[in-house]
C-alpha cells in the first residue's frame, strides 16, 4: 500500500481545561474520532469554522502534538514510531503568516538552509547548492540569498516559507491557511506555485483553509469538520456539486462569489457556535441545523458511506437497522 500516504483512524485529541480553582478540570475534545486516508499526490482540504479542530488535527499529523487515542500511519508506519528527524524529512508545514513564521534576524539563505543543518548535512557547499535550486524552484531570485525577511514583500516571504518546507524534499506538506494573509494578486501567484510544485515534485498536500473558493480551486478531496468531528468527506467536484450534510450546504451557501446579482445569502445558521467544552448532545450540529429531526438531539449519527463519499448525518444511512 505504497500510495496511501497518511491513514488516520479514530484519532482523538483531548485537552484538559481548568475552570478555576475549585471547579476541577473538564475535557475539551478538540479532535474527536477522525478517520482519514490521504493518498499520494492528493490535495486534501480541511474546512470548517474556527474552533472546529482543523489546526489541532494538522498538528497531530505533523507530529507536533501526540494524539490522545487512535492511530496514524505515515507511509504504512505508525507515526509515533517514526523518529522525529525522519518525520520532519517526510512532513513539513507552511504557516499562515509569513511575517511571523520567518526569523527576522536570519538571512533568507540561512532560513531556507536550516532544515538541512537539522538533518545533519554539514557540507556547506551542498547546502548552498540545494538552497539555490529550491529558491529557483519557488521563483525566488538567487540574489535574495543574503537578504533579510524585512526586505521582502509578503508574497516573497511566503515563497521563502515554501522553499524552507521543500528544501529536504518532503513527501507531505501541511499548509495552514497558506494564502489568507496575502493580497488577492499575490494569493493567486502562491496558489499557482503550490499547484505547479505538486505536479513537479509529486507532493501530497493537506490544506487548511476557510476560503472555500480557494479550496475548490486547489483541492482534490475536501473534509468538512464540525466540533472535532469529520461530518463530510468527498471528492471536491462531488462536494461542491452535491453537498450532503446540512452544515456543508450552509457553509457553501455562505461563500460570497463575486457575482453582484446574487445578494447576500441567508444561511439560517444562527449566531452561536456551540462551546466546544460543552458540546450539544446527539448530533453536535443539531441546534443550528435547518433539517434537524427529533432523534438528532438524542442520538449521535453514525457515519455513512455514499459511494466514494462519507457523511455523518441522520438524514443518510439506515439507522433503523
Amino acid at each position, binding site marked *: 500500500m505504497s500510495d496511501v500516504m497518511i491513514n488516520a483512524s479514530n484519532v482523538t485529541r483531548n485537552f484538559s481545561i481548568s475552570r478555576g480553582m475549585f471547579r476541577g478540570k473538564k475535557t475539551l475534545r478538540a479532535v474527536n474520532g477522525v478517520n482519514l486516508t490521504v493518498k499520494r499526490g492528493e490535495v486534501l482540504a480541511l474546512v470548517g469554522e*474556527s474552533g472546529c479542530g482543523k489546526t489541532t488535527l494538522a498538528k497531530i499529523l505533523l507530529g507536533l502534538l501526540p494524539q490522545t487515542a487512535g492511530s496514524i500511519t505515515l507511509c504504512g508506519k505508525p507515526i509515533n514510531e517514526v523518529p522525529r528527524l525522519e518525520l520532519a524529512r517526510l512532513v513539513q508545514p507552511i504557516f499562515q503568516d509569513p511575517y511571523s513564521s520567518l526569523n527576522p534576524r536570519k538571512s533568507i539563505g540561512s532560513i531556507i538552509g536550516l532544515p538541512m543543518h537539522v538533518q545533519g548535512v554539514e557540507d556547506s557547499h551542498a547546502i548552498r547548492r540545494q538552497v539555490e535550486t529550491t529558491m529557483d524552484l519557488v521563483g525566488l531570485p538567487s540574489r535574495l540569498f543574503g537578504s533579510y525577511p524585512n526586505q521582502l514583500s509578503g508574497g516573497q516571504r511566503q515563497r521563502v516559507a515554501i522553499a524552507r518546507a521543500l528544501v529536504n524534499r518532503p513527501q507531505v506538506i501541511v499548509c495552514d491557511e497558506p494564502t489568507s494573509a496575502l493580497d488577492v494578486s499575490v494569493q493567486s501567484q502562491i496558489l499557482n506555485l503550490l499547484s505547479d510544485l505538486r505536479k513537479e515534485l509529486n507532493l501530497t498536500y493537506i490544506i487548511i483553509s476557510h476560503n472555500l473558493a480557494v479550496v475548490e480551486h486547489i483541492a482534490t478531496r475536501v473534509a468538512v469538520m464540525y466540533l472535532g468531528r469529520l461530518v463530510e468527506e468527498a471528492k471536491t467536484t462531488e462536494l461542491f456539486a452535491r453537498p450532503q450534510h446540512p452544515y456543508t450546504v450552509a457553509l457553501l451557501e455562505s461563500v460570497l462569489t463575486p457575482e*453582484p446579482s446574487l445578494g447576500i445569502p441567508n444561511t439560517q445558521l444562527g449566531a452561536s457556535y456551540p462551546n466546544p467544552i460543552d458540546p450539544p448532545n446527539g448530533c453536535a450540529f443539531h441546534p443550528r441545523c435547518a433539517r434537524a429531526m427529533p432523534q438528532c438531539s438524542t442520538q449521535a449519527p453514525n457515519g455513512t458511506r455514499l459511494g466514494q463519499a462519507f457523511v455523518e448525518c441522520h438524514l443518510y444511512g439506515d439507522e433503523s437497522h
Partner: protein
Amino acid sequence: MPDRVLEVKNLSVDIPLAEGVLHAVDDLNIHVDKGETLCIVGESGCGKSLTSLAIMDLLPKKAIRKLHQLDLAGTSILDYSEKQMSDIRGNKMGMIFQEPMTSLNPAFTIGNQMVETLQRHRNISGENAKKTALIMLEKVGITAADQRLKQYPHQLSGGLRQRVMIAMTLLCEPELIIADEPTTALDVTIQAQILLLLKELQSEYEMGLILITHDLGVVARIATRVAVMYAGQIVEEGTVQQIFENPMHPYTRGLMRCIPVPGKTKPGEPLGSIPGMVPSLIGEFTGCRFADRCSHATDTCRSLNVNLRAEEENTQAYRCIIDPKTMAKVA
C-alpha cells in the same frame, strides 16, 4: 443636495518620512448618498484605510491631511475643532473596525460601554439609555440581550462582538457608517450573517455606508458603487455592475482574474496574476502608477498623469489612456 451624506473633494494624505514625503493618498474624491453602499477596494498599502481615517480626522499625528471639501449631510465639517469632531464621531458618523476585540474596552461590560456612548452624545437618563441599548442589541439579533449587557467583551464570540459593535454604532442613528474590513476576522458563515445584518439595518435607517475591504466577493454582494484604489489613487469608480461585468482599468481586470470563482475558473488551471510590486510612493510620481505591472503600458503611460474620467455620462470613470479595444485584443 439633501440626499448626499458625504462629499469629499481633493483629499490628499502625506506622511513625512526620513527618506522623503510619502504620498499615501493622492487627490481623492468620493461621495456617498443616503442608503447607498460605497465599497473601497484595494490591496494592502493602497491607502484605503488612511482614507477612512482622514474622513474621521483620526489620522496619526505625523500624517498631513489636505482637503478642499468635506461635507457631512450637507454641513461642512472641514474646519471643525477636535471637540466638534468628537461630538460627531460615534454620533453622526459611526465606525466599525476589523477586530472587535481591540475596539471594545475589555475592562467594562457591554452595557456600560453602550450607555456611555449614548450619554456622551444624548441628554438621556441612565435608565433610558439602558433600555435603548437593550432594544438595539435585540435589533442586531442578539438573544438574551439583558444578560449580554452585563457581560464583558471576552465572554462573547467574535461574531457576537461584531454584532455588539454594530449595535453600538447604531445607537445614535448615524447618517454615515464607515466599516473598515468588518468581517475579515470572522468565519464565512458569520461573515454572511453580519453583512446581511448591515444591509438590512442600512436600508431601515437609510444610512450611507462606506465599506473598506479587499474581498471582491463581499464587494460584489453588498456594494451599490465601487471605488478601486491602487497606490493611493482611485483607478476606477462605477456601479457594482459596471465594475464586475465590464472592468476597464487593467488593474481591475487583473484583480478579477486573480480570484478563483466556483463554477467559472476551472479547478487546477492556473489563475491570473499581476506581476511586479506596488511602486514606492515616496517623492513625486509622474505617469500611471500601474504602468510597471501593466502589460499594455507604453512610454506615454509612464510620462503622462491621467485623470479619472468617464467615456460617457453613464459609464464608469477610470484612469487609463489605453484604447479599450486594443486592451480587449491582448487580454
